[in-house]
């Protein structure tokens, strides 16, 4: 029995249990208030065990992909509950789990109002993300893709900060609207396949062999592309991101930045590159141009922000530009760079959002001018902030540099001028990162925080794990790079000639 469906469904069920438990124990004592938090932690632990089994267990499934699960769901429409896992999914699943632990350990414990519902929504979003990384039935993929949005929308609009409603609605409109385009593309692909073969199916592997005219395949690919581009985000459609990241509660910010953006990158690899390889190659110049624009534009705007969470949000746009650039270079190097960049960005930006969120919880402001120097009073928090800021400026030896270097290398093969232009983004990265460091960490002490305390040793050790992983990704990324390449499309035989196979 494959553990994949359990991996997907466990958070949802656990979340429901957490919610019910919280509702039934409204006695008001603080220990009872934390019951949903405890259950969430247990769910994540169980999930880790499952993932460990998946990673290291003996697979009965034989094939180029690591694991496979399928039962019919709506047979009359050819829809099945089908999950497949390859190295790319596996590495992103690990990222998901690794990031959700610090979220729960550091951020969600602070939630007092309706903690049960919060944890339920958190875990539901996690289900969506996990499922998105695994689903190979296009309908199921779309379903989970949308499933991820709704809890996030509620999380932002209910637990967010001052301007949460506008941010949540903007987030929802952008992602939902682009999701509909993707649904159209999916339907178009399915119907084309049905016309050709009289088989109604949403199966990813079958649909991959549909013969499409070049125009049609471009249109369908664009439908997918726009949905993923909004999620990634790519520059002209990034508008939802700064607002949503800024207004979301800490845990949701981490989920958004650390994981949800990755679903965009994952989708681009799995559905743009692998379903439409030739079309993606034709589209590559445009996509790479958008990627470079994202890198420079995000970094430039990041230099101008005074709101610390906004600064980090714009830096994410810059980093995800590298992902986009890497994916569309059309080489394995670029693809590996993009994947490493996704993982490293998840770790570093997730941690930065955790730290920014902790600052906001303590000082109730995100304005860097008001925060002032924190080093003297909170050395642990500040040193963690410094560490991740340095990581995000692309210091060699951290995962971000590995990703960026591989992407740049692959880009240099394609177009050296574009790559040289992109390195300007690295200078801008230094400017915004160090500007942040010198505004809020290593800066003159402004207001002595009264009741707030520094990170505890336990919290620091949680962040320490992230640090270690980031450094490992920086100095020894080879296992991850080998593991995380997407498997080829043919389920029958081990891949031999696939463009993006191993």
């Amino acid at each position, binding site marked *: 029995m494959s553990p994949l469906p359990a991996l997907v469904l466990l958070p949802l069920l656990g979340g429901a249990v957490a919610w019910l438990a919280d509702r039934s124990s409204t006695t008001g004592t603080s220990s009872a208030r934390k019951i949903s938090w405890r259950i969430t932690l247990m769910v994540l632990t169980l999930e880790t065990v499952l993932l460990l089994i998946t990673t290291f267990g003996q697979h009965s499934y034989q094939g180029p992909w690591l694991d496979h699960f399928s039962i019919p769901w709506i047979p009359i429409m050819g829809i099945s509950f089908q999950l497949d896992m390859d190295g790319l999914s596996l590495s992103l699943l690990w990222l998901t789990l690794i990031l959700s632990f610090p979220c729960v350990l550091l951020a969600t414990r602070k939630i007092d109002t309706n903690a049960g519902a919060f944890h339920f929504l958190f875990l539901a979003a996690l289900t969506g993300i996990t499922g998105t990384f695994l689903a190979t039935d296009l309908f199921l993929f779309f379903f989970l893709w949308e499933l991820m949005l709704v809890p996030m929308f509620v999380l932002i609009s209910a637990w967010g900060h001052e301007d949460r409603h506008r941010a949540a609605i903007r987030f929802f409109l952008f992602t939902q609207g682009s999701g509909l385009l993707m649904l159209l593309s999916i339907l178009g692909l399915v119907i084309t396949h049905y016309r050709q073969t009289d088989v109604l199916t949403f199966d990813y592997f079958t649909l991959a062999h549909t013969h499409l005219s070049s125009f049609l395949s471009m249109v369908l690919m664009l439908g997918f592309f726009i949905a993923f581009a909004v999620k990634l985000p790519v*520059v*002209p459609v*990034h*508008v939802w991101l*700064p607002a949503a990241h800024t207004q979301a509660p800490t845990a949701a910010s981490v989920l958004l930045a650390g994981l949800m953006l990755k679903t965009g990158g994952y989708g681009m690899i799995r559905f743009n590159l692998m379903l439409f390889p030739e079309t993606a190659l034709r589209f590559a110049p445009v996509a790479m141009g958008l990627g470079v624009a994202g890198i420079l*534009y995000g970094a*430039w*705007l990041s*230099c*101008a*922000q005074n709101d610390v969470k906004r600064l980090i949000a714009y830096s994410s746009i810059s980093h995800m530009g590298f992902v986009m650039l890497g994916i569309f270079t059309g*080489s*394995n*190097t670029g693809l*590996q760079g993009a994947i490493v960049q996704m993982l490293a960005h998840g770790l570093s930006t997730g941690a930065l959002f955790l730290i920014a969120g902790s600052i906001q919880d303590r000082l109730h402001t995100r304005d860097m001018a008001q925060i002032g*120097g924190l*080093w003297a009073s909170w*050395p642990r928090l500040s*040193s963690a902030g410094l560490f991740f800021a*340095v990581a995000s400026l692309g*210091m*060699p*030896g951290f995962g971000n*540099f*590995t990703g960026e*270097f*591989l992407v*740049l*290398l692959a880009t*240099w*093969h394609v177009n*050296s001028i574009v*790559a*040289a232009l992109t*390195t*300007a983004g*690295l*200078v801008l990265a*230094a*400017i915004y990162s*160090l*500007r942040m460091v*010198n505004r809020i960490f*290593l*800066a*003159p*002490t402004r207001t002595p925080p009264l009741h707030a305390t520094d990170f505890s040793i336990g919290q620091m050790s949680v962040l320490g794990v992230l640090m270690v992983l980031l450094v490992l990704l920086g*100095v*020894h*990324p*080879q296992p991850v*790079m080998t593991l995380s390449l997407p498997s080829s499309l043919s389920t029958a035989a081990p891949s031999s000639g696939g463009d993006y196979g191993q």
Partner: protein
Amino acid sequence: MSYLLPLLVFLPLASALFLFTTAGKISAQTVGFVAASAIGLSALCSIVLAGAFLTSAPSTPLQITLWEWMHTQEFSADIAFALDPISLLMILVVTIVGFLIHLYAIRYMEEEPGIARFFGCMTLFVSAMLVLVLSSDLLCLFIGWEGVGICSYLLIGFWYENPRNTAAARKAFYMTRIGDAAMLCGLLILATSTGSLQTHTVLTALGAGTIAPQTLTAAALFLLVGGLAKSAQIPFQTWLPDAMAGPTPTSALIHAATMVTAGIYLIARLHLLFAAVPLVMMLTAIIGALTILMAACTALVQTDLKRILAWSTISQLGYMFLALGTGIWQAAVFHLMTHAFFKALLFLTAGAIIARLHHEQDIFRMGGLYRSMPGLTAAFLAGAAALAGLPLVTSGFYSKEMILSSIWSAHFPLAPLFLPLAHILWGMALAGAFLTALYISRCVFIVFFGPSRTAASGSTPRLMAIPLACLSFLSLFGGVIEMPDTLAPIHLFTRFLSSPFPHAEEPVWLVLTGGSVPIAGIVIAWILWGRATPVMQEIPGQSTIIRMAKEGWGADALYDFLFVQPFRFLVWLTRHDILDYLILGIGRMTRAISTFFETARTRSLTLFSGKTILFLHEGDALLARFQNGRVRWYAAWIVAGLCAALVSGVVS
């Protein structure tokens, strides 16, 4: 033996990690002891390595590949270390000078609350620097290259309570980062054309001629820009004087002895690549020569002791670039070594003096210090003599002499025939040597002789004095391993670096000129500043040219005007997301348009329905006139209708 290489890097790294994690929990003494002992052990390792290397057979560089870093289809990089003569020399300099500076810093920094952060960054810096010099892979070198940059940033901004310090730290990092981006471009060019950044692979590909000449030129140019930024050469020189905002041991270790020489190390390491591109070589030499003169002139008018030394560092690095540009990289590395000794000594002595004068850095408020602190005076004199290149008795003389005499006979293939470029550069270097002697003697005469202006207090602790003594010894006698043929045929250094060093025929007059110029400088300085009634009563800001020179020839203002202010302004201008506005604007426009349509529709509907109602009313009234309730009328209508029906029936 090769396991010592990772150990060399690991010891300072482990100590840095230990210091960061235990910050605030252990005493200042322990912190200093841990840091110094880690560097000391590293120094021991490097001495052991040097012994082993010198006794073993030549031409067997020690190599160790720790693990694969990134391997893809078209590129591979490893975390790999190798020990060859240049890197052996560098690790000796880094660890020994670093150890002495750490020893000094234990007492110097003991009062600081952030001492753990200080020593953590310092040891981290040493380990990054060791990575830089030991890597056999250029990408791995880049880890160290950026690592020393970030440590330098943290240490310049060590006293973060003053925003000027952090601004100086950021300035240093940004300017070197620009160079780093250029260097990354250079690395990418090499990586795409050779598929690897292993030094020997790159050089083999170069030897095999598989790299196109244009590619090579571009790569060399980019790498040169990286080196110039790191070593604060002419377009990038402005960050180094500001970097003096950091603690003095930092200035000594990072901004004099080691990090700023990374550019020289890089070019020396890739000298074969640079030698293949005459254009870049010529550029390097010219930039070096210009930097020598510019920085020396600036140093001549500075009043801040540490800034004098900073400008002098830039000037001395200019010598090394000049040497690299003329192809005598051995001389550059030799000068790098001696410079590390005497400049570290000068900085540390200056730090001790400043500490005893209650943080007074203006040389015109010092004076007559030889009476109150004879030991420090002796150390500073040793360093100053080495910097000036006092003949025969100082190390600086030998290294500078090696550069000067080699330039005379250098050959630049790209220079126009009528222009004796080598001779011009030699003249500039000689003028630089004269100016060097002049400014450092001016400093010595003003600070140590003449009337006393500030009372000194306390005494220099022994833990600080020992490193000064060691460095004084090295400054004076560290240069005897290499001598001009005219004096004695000792070529230990060049033989150690590369087996056949083409010793040009050195005329005796060259050595004589090189030796007499510093003496002339010192004599003139004595005439100007040393006598009881100084000829030159220096008033700060006396004339425009001095003001200009004091500000570093306006480069700061120029960059501020050309880059910083426009950047700030543009960033400020675009601080709000234009696209955000665009999308919001589209939203607003849509809303406005739809409102417009809605009003238009409402209005037209109102109009239409009003008309309809009116029309219906009219018709209603008309019909109501028929419906008058009078039976006779009804009957009449019936009859009329019947008649009409009949008529129509009959007619048709």
